[in-house]
């Protein structure tokens, strides 16, 4: 017959087992914030990033918005800065641009990559037609506005990305769609799927309605990640895509984007947004490393990186490392 002592022991054993599991798990795990991989410095390539021990005193947190292309960029910058000797944490997948900007302002992150066009339209209220199509002009304009708030934007990347209205090749053929204007008279029969903020954005549904004068049969908000799925499943007639999407080249027989003839969707090069104070404290290597490492990011490269993450399901970290190594920035 079991005594109560045995029963107590059993309960204590159960709790102890759980506490022990907790202890093992706590000792064996990494810290909960992801840290970038460190890599060796120096190397044979002239463009390799050199580690500066001075930078070891500075802690940086690199953020990004919440879709793969952004996370890849964040990882690239984070790994590059680590190679330059900084202590780097990453806080990727923060949310959309308003969340990310707030994170910079409150100091939660040191900086994040933003699209110049998004900054100008979302933060500073420009109409799409006011966004300069020249990358440097757009950057300067954005930088002017950022400076008013104590922020700073570094110079732009070679590649640019824009929203686009996309559809299946079958639908495009059926209605003879080549440009967005071709949707006039047809769009009332078609359903449009986009990200939730698309409805309010002037470089998205709001712009399509206001500047193209289009009315759609319906608009359904879905997560950005599902933008091709809804086309494939035949649920969406039209979907908001990005010009850098890998599916557009890898599956060009299935998907096509309509030409933005009225230029509602401005293309944006990526500019790294950070606080002036942070940049000063971090020293010259901060900006220098970021500018150096983004030089290789032309459209083809970015599409390749996007393809690796979105199609082949590699992690942004893997893709970023592959890019940095292949371009000779890190060994």
């Amino acid at each position, binding site marked *: 017959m079991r005594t109560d002592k045995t029963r107590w022991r059993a309960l204590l054993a159960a709790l102890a087992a759980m506490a022990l599991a907790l202890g093992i798990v706590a000792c064996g795990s990494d810290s909960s914030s992801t840290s970038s991989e460190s890599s060796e410095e120096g190397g044979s390539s002239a463009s390799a990033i050199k580690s500066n021990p001075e930078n070891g005193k500075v802690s940086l947190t690199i953020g990004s918005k919440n879709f793969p292309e952004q996370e890849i960029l964040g990882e690239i910058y984070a790994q590059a800065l680590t190679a330059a000797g900084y202590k780097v944490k990453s806080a990727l997948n923060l949310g959309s641009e308003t969340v990310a900007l707030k994170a910079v302002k409150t100091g939660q992150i040191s900086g994040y990559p933003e699209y110049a066009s998004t900054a100008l339209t979302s933060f500073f209220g420009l109409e799409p037609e006011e966004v300069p199509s020249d990358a440097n002009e757009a950057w300067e304009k954005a930088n002017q506005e950022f400076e008013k708030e104590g922020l700073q934007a570094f110079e732009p990347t070679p590649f640019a990305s824009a929203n686009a209205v996309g559809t299946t090749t079958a639908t495009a053929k059926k209605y003879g769609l080549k440009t967005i204007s071709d949707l006039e008279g047809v769009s009332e029969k078609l359903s449009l799927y986009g990200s939730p903020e698309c409805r309010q954005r002037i470089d998205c549904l709001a712009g399509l309605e206001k500047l193209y004068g289009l009315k759609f049969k319906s608009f359904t908000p879905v997560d950005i990640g599902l933008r091709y*799925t809804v086309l494939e499943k035949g649920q969406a007639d039209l979907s908001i895509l990005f010009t850098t999407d890998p599916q557009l080249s890898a599956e060009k027989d299935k998907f096509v984007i309509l030409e933005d003839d009225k230029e509602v969707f401005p293309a944006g090069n990526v500019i790294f947004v950070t606080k002036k104070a942070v940049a000063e404290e971090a020293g010259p290597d901060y900006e220098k490393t970021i500018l150096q490492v983004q030089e290789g990011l032309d459209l083809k490269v970015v599409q390749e990186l996007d393809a690796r993450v979105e199609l082949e399901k590699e992690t942004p970290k893997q893709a970023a490392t592959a890019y940095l190594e292949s371009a000779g920035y890190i060994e």
Partner: protein
Amino acid sequence: MNTLPLASFTGAFEFIFAPQDSNVTGGNQVGGFEKSLELVLKHLEVSVIALAIALIVALPLGLYLGHRGRGELFAIGIGTAGRAIPELAVIALVAVLIGVGLKTVAPALAILGIAPILVNTYVGVRQVDPAAVEAARGMGMSELDIMRKVELPLAIPTVMGGVRGAAIVIVATATIAPLAGVETLGDFIINRNVYGENGLLAGAILVALLALAIEGSLALLQRRLTSDGLKLKTV
């Protein structure tokens, strides 16, 4: 996010009742009473449909199994398994494999609700006093009548416990339904870039209130349905 908590909450309440300027350009406003009401109703809609489906599937099955005394392992196993299913995975799988929208999300939510109803109905029926069943059988009642008129009423407290558990899970999962294209109150929460922090908090408050309201109603319903004799026993 270092404003005083109280200030945040007042901002949220404003959001519920009056449209606010959006963070995102376009000049459109977000929030306000109409929108809040619309999402509350949508949230209710998908939850009610899912609960109904779950009831239709699980209640008869649980009654039958409990009545026959069969499938105990199955019922209990389903109970544990159901509790272990991560709702996020169900919504995500439905969205990517089958499709987005109410037609696919409601059944997905129903699946989550089947387990609690099934287990509780089974257990409730099994706990019915065998003497009562024997007496009914002796009176010549058909098996079906016994299930409906004797076992079910006596099992109501436990069954309703299961229904309430199902409702909790369904309402909670409906909050992440926006990921699969069904705009519920979760929209304020998940798509906070559109609605801002006030919207985020407003969504959380509304979801909490809605869940409590549904639970409260079901508790009242339970009291109504429980025959007076049983009320003395209920915990």
